[in-house]
Structures are given as C-alpha cells and as structure tokens.
C-alpha cells in the first residue's frame, strides 16, 4: 500500500495543478505537525489576546492582520491547522474503520445481515449530511468532541456502502470461490481476500473525504455547534470574523481561504488517486 | 489466376517519440486468389490479428507500416484510398459478434446504417435485407431484423455480422477468429456457411485463428506465423500432414487427440518472445532442438516441394 501511495505521488509531478495541490497539502501537514514551534506569534496563536493590536490589517508585522482579539491571524490559522487536520483524520479514520468492517460483513454474509446493514446505512445516507450532524449535536450538546462524534455517525455509512459494493464483486471472483471451496476460514476470507482487494477505492475515498470533513467540521464550527472559542478552528475563525466582515474583512476571508485551499487540495489528491488506481487496475 | 490480395514485405513497427519499441510483424508475403481461402494460424502474440488490421488500414497511431498491400483491380492500398475500400471491397468479421453491434440499435437499424453508407437507398435496403439474411442461413428474418443484439444468440449474431460484411459484395473477406467465441457445433455451422458463401460469391478469404482445426476446415492454403514472420506456408493437407518447420511440428504435436497417449503431447520448451526487438537470426532458435550456428542468420521462406519453409535445417 505504501508503494502504491509513493507511486501515486510520482505520478503527481506531471500536472501543474496537482503540483500546486501537493505543495499546499505538504505545507498544511507540516504546519499542523510542527504547530506551536513555528508560530510567528506563539502566545497569540494559542489564544492569548493582545488588546493593543486590535484591528490591524495585513501588513509587515502581521501578514494576515489580527483578529478581533488582536491576535496574529497567521499564527491563529497555523495553530488551528493542527486541530483541523487531526480532527478530520480522526473522523475519517473512525468512519472508515467502522464502515469497512460493516461493509465487509454485509458483503460476505449477505442475507439478513446485508439487508440490515444496508438499510441502516440507507437511513443515514438519506439525511443531508449536515442535517444529521446538526441533529446529533443538538442532542449531545455543542463542542468539538460532540461535533466529531456527530460527523463520525454521519460518515460511516458512505464507507459501509462503498466497501460492501466493492467487496461483493471481489467475492464473486474465482480466487475467493476457490478459497471457500477449499474450506478456508471465514475470517481469513474476509481479511486476506476481500479486504486487500478493496483498498484502492478505500484510499481514494479516504483522501477525498479528508477535505470534505474539514469543510463539514468547519461548517459546524461556523454555526457554533462545533469547536468553541478560544479554539483556533478555522470555521470558528470565519464565524468570529463575520460580525466585523465589512471593517476587518481579512479575518473571515483568510480563514475561509485557508479552508478553501486545503479542501481543494484534498479533492485534487482524491482525483489523482482515482485516475492512478482505477483505469489501470480494473483489468 | 485471379489474385485478389497480394501482400509483399509487410512490416509493422511500433514507436514512441520516434524510437522503435517493438516489431510485431517482421516480414509477411502472402497472396490469395478469388474464391480461395488462405489461413493464418499462430499463437498469441504472433501478429496475426495485427496483419488483419494492417490490411484494413486500422493500425494504431504509433504503428509504422512498410511493405506493399494491393487489392485486385484497386491496386496498392494506401492511407488515402483505404477509407473507401474498407467495408466496401474489403470486409472483416470479428471474434465477438456482440462487440460488432451497437447494443442500443436493432439489427435492421444497423444494417441500414451500413447499407446507406454504401449508397443503397432506404427502399433498396429493405428489399435487400431479407435475401441477405436468408443467404446466411437465418430463418426468422422479420423477428431478427427487429431484435436488439442481446436478444440473439452468439451463432445468430455471427451470421448477422457475416450478412453485414457481405452487403457490399466485397472482393476480400477477412475473418479474425470468427468461431473462437462460439460453441464447437455452432462454429462448425458458421465455417460451413462461410465456405458455401465463398463458393457462391467468389470472394477471397483470409482466415485467421489460433484454432488449427477451424483453419484447416476452410482453407486451401495455410501459413504458420511465429513472432511476426511466416515460418511455413503451403497447401493445407501438406502443411498439416507433413509439417517441415520445427515450430509447425511442435504446434501440431501439441494438439490433443485420443490417438496420442496421455502425457506425450509435444511441448515446445520456452515461451513465445514478447518483443523481438534486437533479436538476430531465427526467432525460434532459442526453443528449437535443431538449432545450429547458422540459425544466427535469419532463414527466409524457401520452397520445399509444394510448401515454403523458413528453416535452415529443412533440406529440399
């Protein structure tokens, strides 16, 4: 799998847009990982207000200006990158795990297990994604943790359905049939035969979802149901800049721009992976 | 002697960015007279389907063809004139009848499309079709015309494809594995049909297949193709009854039969070369038990009785 991802990345070099996306994502990940240690204004980045520097626009001292509490916006965004990345990773990983396991079971066992899992998934999938999260959050209460739980609940059905459909095709292939005829254990068939052969669509979906979840989490934060102040969540920053958008336009703008660029970059990555894996591998 | 197809020195190379990457056809000479069938037999990768495409002018964009292909009165086939000959004086039938028909059109609609391209009017076509379908042995003509491809069996569709190919009364019919996807009994009927039509209409036929039995059924002459070159060519009975080239012998010896004791089928060691680029001498030498130093020089097709063989070890 690692070699495939590496191979995917070498493929990227061919196209200017994919090069830009790679660059954006690399920066994003680096910033998220290095966090506190590279902030231009560390204390402000982490939340300390600086009432002396209110309403400063983009300029030499503060490249992106300061927010409504005088904190360097760039530092805030950089600090928030970590939360944005890790929370979306967490959501997608959990959703993918749960969804994959359920999807594999549905594909392998068929019958009522398949019907049950698919019907529940359909139920969840028929809600507009954000609405589901809203309902969940309203039941659980606002806050980052709850918004993440809400997102996970909304996201797993996509994986369940995707993996179930892919695994059903794999199950029909001769090598699975032979394994069953030879009396190979069910556990082994699911994890050694079905799972390794559905990783391509899984990876593609995973990459694209990272961007989508960032957007969703940001949206939840924007309407106040996600991360709460003083967190540096980008959606929250957009929300916080909303009331002063006409005077201090830079707050919402740059926060929104950050979200836009990262989501775009993840979607590009998803497209590149799809092109790399699908037509060539579907022999 | 009414020569319909004459191929001289056909070579096809594939290139990328001006650099040759493979030579799937390295020199083919072939001629077919009217009313006769010449078969080409060989395994995967020998270049037989590519030969058909070369004649039809349907090679991929990065293919470089040299040599001369001429068709009866038309003369040499060039990129300029191939378009008007394709589907007209030369027709082709393929292995998978389902892939030759568009699934969203009925048979009648597709035949009409072809007929109109040949200059038949709508009325003329409608009058023509029942006869043409009857000619290929179909009975429920009205139902078939109104059917979609997926509603017909493989054998019936293959007959429709033959009817479609013969609409323009071509001088040359190329058949590329026409019976491979069909059951043996249905395939046998199709072969009999092709022979009958050939006798009635007098077209020349190039029959390409990996199935020696099928080729032998319809061809007066057989050419054995290996790695892009003909290694043996001659009357069917002689090539099959008294093969000279070691590859031909190996190929025929590999055909299973109840008269051969189990475990004794001829097994030619090694595999067909996937790319002959950079190879010198006979392409078969690395697998040949008769190989001698002279085989480092490429043997040409030389006459041996009634057949021609490309092998140094075959004495005249």
């Amino acid at each position, binding site marked *: 799998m690692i070699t495939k991802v590496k191979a995917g990345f070498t493929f990227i070099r061919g196209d200017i847009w994919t090069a830009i996306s790679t660059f954006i994502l690399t920066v994003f990940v680096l910033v998220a990982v290095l966090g506190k240690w590279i902030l231009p204004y560390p204390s402000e980045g982490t939340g300390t207000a600086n009432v002396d520097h209110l309403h400063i626009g983009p300029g030499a001292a503060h490249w992106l200006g300061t927010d409504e509490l005088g904190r360097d916006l760039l530092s805030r965004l950089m600090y928030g990158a970590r939360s944005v990345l890790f929370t979306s990773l967490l959501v997608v990983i959990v959703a993918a795990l749960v969804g994959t396991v359920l999807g594999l079971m549905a594909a392998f066992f068929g019958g009522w297990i398949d019907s049950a899992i698919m019907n529940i998934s359909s139920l969840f999938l028929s809600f507009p994604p954000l609405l589901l999260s809203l309902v969940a959050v309203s039941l659980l209460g606002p806050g980052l943790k709850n918004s993440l739980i809400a997102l996970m609940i909304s996201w797993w059905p996509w994986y369940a359905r995707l993996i179930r459909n892919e695994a059903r095709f794999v199950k029909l*292939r*001769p*090598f*699975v*049939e*032979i*394994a*069953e*005829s*030879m*009396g*190979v*254990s069910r556990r*082994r068939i699911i994890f*050694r*035969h079905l799972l*390794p*052969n559905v990783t391509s669509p899984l990876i593609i979906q995973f990459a694209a979802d990272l961007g989508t979840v960032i957007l969703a989490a940001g949206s939840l934060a924007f309407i106040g149901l996600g991360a709460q102040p003083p967190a540096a969540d980008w959606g929250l920053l957009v929300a916080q800049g909303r009331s002063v958008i006409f005077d201090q336009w830079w707050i919402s703008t740059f926060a929104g721009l950050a979200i836009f660029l990262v989501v775009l970059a993840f979607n590009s990555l998803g497209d590149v992976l799809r092109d790399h894996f699908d037509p060539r591998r579907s022999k | 002697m009414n020569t319909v197809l004459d191929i001289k020195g056909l070579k096809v190379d594939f290139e990328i960015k001006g650099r040759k990457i493979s030579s799937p056809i390295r020199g083919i000479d072939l001629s077919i007279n009217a009313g006769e069938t010449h078969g080409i037999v060989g*395994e*995967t990768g020998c270049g037989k389907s590519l030969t058909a495409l070369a004649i039809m002018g349907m090679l991929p964009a990065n293919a470089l063809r040299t040599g001369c292909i001429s068709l009866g009165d038309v003369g040499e086939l060039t990129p300029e004139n191939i378009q008007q000959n394709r589907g007209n004086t030369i027709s082709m039938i393929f292995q998978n009848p389902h892939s030759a028909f568009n699934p969203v059109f009925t048979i009648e609609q597709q035949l009409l499309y072809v007929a109109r391209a040949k200059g038949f009017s709508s009325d003329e076509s409608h009058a023509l079709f029942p006869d043409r379908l009857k000619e290929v042995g179909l009975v429920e003509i009205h139902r078939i015309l109104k059917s979609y491809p997926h509603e017909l069996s493989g054998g019936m569709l293959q007959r429709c494809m033959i009817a479609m190919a013969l609409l323009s009364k071509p001088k040359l019919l190329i058949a590329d594995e026409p019976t491979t996807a069909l*059951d*043996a*009994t*249905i*395939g*046998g009927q199709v072969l009999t049909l092709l022979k009958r039509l050939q006798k009635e209409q007098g077209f020349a036929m190039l029959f390409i297949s*990996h199935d*020696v*039995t099928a080729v*032998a*059924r319809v061809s007066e002459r057989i050419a054995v193709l290996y790695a892009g070159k003909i290694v043996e060519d001659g009357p*069917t*009975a002689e090539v*099959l*009854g008294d093969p000279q080239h070691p590859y031909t012998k*190996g*190929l025929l*010896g*590999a*055909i*299973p*039969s*109840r*008269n*051969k*004791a*189990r*475990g*004794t*089928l*001829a*097994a*030619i060691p090694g*595999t*067909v070369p996937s790319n002959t680029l950079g190879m010198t001498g006979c392409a078969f030498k690395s697998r040949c038990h008769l190989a001698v130093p002279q085989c480092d020089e490429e043997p040409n097709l030389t006459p041996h009785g009634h057949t021609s063989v490309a092998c140094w070890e075959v004495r005249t």
Partner: protein
Amino acid sequence: MTNPVLEVIDVSKEFVNDRNKHEVTRAVQGVSFTISPGEVFGLVGESGSGKTTIARCAFGITPATGGQIKLFGEDIATLSSAQRKKSRKRLGFVFQDPVASLNPRMTIFEVISEGLIGASLSKEEIRSRVEYLIEKVGLTKEHLARKRHELSGGQCQRVAIARALASEPELILLDEPTSSLDLSVQAQILNLLEDLRKELNLSYLIISHNLEVIAHISDRMAVMSQGVIVEAGTTSQIMSNPQHEFTKTLIGAYETNSTSNLPDDFDWENWQSAPTNRWAYQHVSDFIKTQNINPAQTSAAPRTNRPHDSRLDQHEVALESLYTDALVVMNRGVLVDERYYGEMRPESAHLLQSVSKSLLGTLYGTLIEKKLIEPSRTVGAYLPQMIHSGYSTATIQNLLDMTAAVDFSEDYDDPNSQISQLDRASGWRISNSLDDLGIRKFLTTVKQNGVHGEQFQYCSANTDLLAWIAESALGKSYSEILSEYIWQPTGASQSASVTVDHEGHALANGGISTTARDLALFGQEILDTYLGKSTKLVSNAWAKDTFGGADPAIKSVDYMQAMHPGGSYHNQWWITNSQHQEIYAVGIYGQYIWIDPATETVIVKFSTLPIALSTKFSEEHIALFRKISNLYS
C-alpha cells in the same frame, strides 16, 4: 472393484429466479455417473449444457436440488460441518481463468500454502511442502516470492495446480483448465496433469467444451446437452462408435478435411477381417494409438529401384488368390524380387499380426545372452504383480516356447474368448467398460490350467507377458527396447510402429507394423546369424538352438504335426524340421517371414486374407514359398 471416489446419483439442480419465484430454470436433470480411484472422467458439453453446474454440485460447492452425491462413500448431504471440512481436504480445484483464480495481493507462496493453514503443521513443514509442490509443477522456488501479475497464464495455472495438490487430495475438479491458454501451453499443462496423476494416483473430473481435450485425457466420459447426459461410456467407445445424434454432431465439428480419413465403411468390430482389413492393415495408426520403433539415425537412403525376377511371374495367379499385399524375396543376401499390390507401396507399413512375436523371440535371444534375462526364472520372480495369476510359476522359456498351461482360447470368432478379451484390453476392439481396458490388467486375470512346460499351447498373451517382463527388467518401453536391440542393428530404413493400450503399453503379440523391405532385412539377419555370417542381432549359438527346434519332451499338437512332422515351436518361431530346415514367422490373415537356409532364401509376404486362419490357406502358402525357394537352389 475398489470403492468409487465420487458417485453422482440422479442429481438435479434448479435455479429459482430471484425476482419471480415462479420462474425456475432446470440446469441439470437426472444426472448419474461415478468416478473410480486413479481415473480421469471427462464431461464435455457446450455452453448451457449444465456441465459446470453438475460438477459444482458434485464437489459440494453448490447444493443440489435433488438426487444423492457421495464423496468417498459418504453422502455429502448428511455430513456435519467438521466432516465436510475433512472431506474438503481430499479434494482439489483448478478453474478456468488461471490469473483470476489467484489473489492478486498474495505472494505465490501464500497462495499455495493457504490450503495448509489449520492443518497443524509447523512453519518449516509448510515451507518445505510448498517448495516441494512448486517444483513438482515445473516452477522454481524463486517464483514463490512473486505475485500473480509477474507470471504468465501458463505459470499461473501451474500455481493453481500446486495449490490444489497442497492438502494431498485424491480427487481434483478441473473446470476448463486449459481453455484460456495457448495451444503449446495447453500441451504442457495437459502433460503435467498426466504426470501428476500417474505419480500421485489422482482421480480427475475434468470439464471442457473442447472435445479434443476431453477425448485425449479421459478414460471415461459423458456428453451433456441441455442439462442431461446424452451419452456416456469409455472414451474409445464414444469416440469410435457414437450413438447419440448430438455426440455425432460434436465429433463432426472437430474433423478437418485431412484427418477424417477413415473410409466411410470402416467397421470397428470387424476391421481385422475382410473387407475392411485391406485398408486397415496399412493404416493402423489412423485408428489405434501407436508408438514408433525408431531405426538408426544414419540409415541408408531408401532404394528407388524395384528388383524383378521374371521367374516368379508364374506365381501371380497364386499370389492374387492368396490376397497378397506385398511380396519381397531375398536370396543370398541380395534383394531379388519385390511385388506390391493394390495401395501397397515400398514405404507402406503393414500390420504384422503374430509375426510380431518372432521379433520378440529374437529380442529375447539377445537379452538372454547379455544376461539381462534368465530363461529359467519364473514370471512371479520378475513381476510381483503376477504372483497370484496363473502365470506365476511359468518360466521365461515356457513362455518363449508357448508351453505355459493357461486357460486361454485363441478363438478369434468368439467374442468371449480370451483372445477377444485381450483385443479389447489393448484397444483393438471396442470395450463397454473401463474394467476391460489395459493389457497388464488382463494378464493378471489369466488362470492356470495344468502343469507348465509339458504341452505346447499357442497363446498370444505369453508374448505380451514377455514384453512386460522385458520392460520391467530394462526399465524402458518395449518400443525403445525393440529399437535398440532389433530395429537399429538390422539396418532398417524406416520407423516401425507398435499399437499401445490406453496406458501406453505395447501389444507385442501382434501390434507391430513395418515395411516389407525392412522385415526382409530382419529375416536376412536371422538367416545370416544361422549361417555364421553375422552376429548383429544374436549369436550363432542361439540361431542354431532355435533352428534345432524345441525340447523333444514337449507334447506337440495335431495341426502342427500334420503340417510339419517332427516340427515344433521354439523361441517364438515355427520350426518345420523339414529337409531344408526352414523356420518361419506367421501372423493371422496371411503375414509371413519364411527363412530357408538350404537355398539361402528369405521371403516376406503381407496379405489380407478374408479369414484369420485355415489349413487350406496355410498349406497353399507353404507350398508357394517352397516353390519360390527352389528356384534358387
């Protein structure tokens, strides 16, 4: 009969349409067949015939709707899941698409070892078994680390076979195992399957739409069409004598112009007699499996001139009345006359019938002299498989002189006589049951009736038994032995051939075909050996002993004494004990090698008499030979 590995009893399979529960497709109806241990059973049919469906039901992959299936004697419907698991280990599966039948994410090692997981073997044991298997199927240990996209189609199929063999199965299902492979790769895989079958004593159920493959590899087969078996039986029976229209159509689809050259009136039951024999004796390999007996590589260029001695023209009428195909006369080592009739040419090989026995007799002369065989040893001492048969205590010399006392009738017209059984066993006549096939199997059933060594009794099976002993003692096939010790030293210019049974064992008692000239060369060698002029084949001592006749103590038979007073049968030659001390080899329907040492004449005659044997024909032949020899005295 040992217990069958698979019994399919009146099995049906219906498929119900998912959407419309009333729509039922009957894929298979009332199918029955059995497979015995070590047997290859072929199912042939076109698409939709139900052959794959029935195979899957038989192997428990798909449940049957009706009927009973017994695997290794147990009804699979009654097995518990633990018993089913055990049963599964005795089965192997090889499917059509070799590439798709391997998991693309697994290494070859993992693919093959999958069947061994849960068998409580240590890692080392698994590794060594996998390494053993990969080499058994013709690949190397290096291939074990690769994945399927690094292998060719043929190699993938070999891996699939190795996987099937992992759990040491007894029965393997092969569903179109070579249909997606090139012709030459198919040949390799089919050969491999046969080698494995012989070595590991496997049984195969093989399914294919390709009749040639099924006919080549199966012992017994069934033809399916539209869910039912339309015809079933031994392969030779179905292919030579198809009854059902569909079978005939299917066979017809595989005939090319050049290979269906059996004459329209070819008669399978009576090809040895007239009228079919005239053609059949010159084309034996067209309808029976044969092996070649090779001449020396650097044999002399074939002669083109045909010598003619006009003094023999007076015998033309007699030759015609004796249904002659060829006559070759040699005198004092020189070819003096050659005559061919009808379709017969100098290069035509003609069936020798029992003249074949005399080649074996001469062969044994050499083998005994070279101390490779000891004539006083018994059959049982050479072949443990024969210890319980009637031949057990007979000696080699008993067999050579036909004094073994066995229950054997040479009545060619009686379909139940032992000679007819031997004909069926060797593929010369059609058999209805697999139990009939196999020369060796037949030989083990012969019973003793009397004391060996006392009485002359002509019995063809003795010669086949001697051929088996020679193969066993030398470790080579009979055709190779004959080539090395007889055909090459004789200086024959053309290959001879011998018919073989379904296992590849030669019918030494009568299945050899040679050209007339080559046979005359052989006869000349015998004469020269007796005259002391040559020792290429055997020693002068053997020749003297043979020409001298058998032990006088042996009781002779009336018909022999009537024709040759004082004559006998010795070392598979007929010894006349006449004034000229002639000896001869004779085969039914008129085949002869006549050797006259007094006039130094050798005569070879091929004929196709309308009947096997008659005193009149025999007497006329001998009279003719003597007249011809006397021309040279």
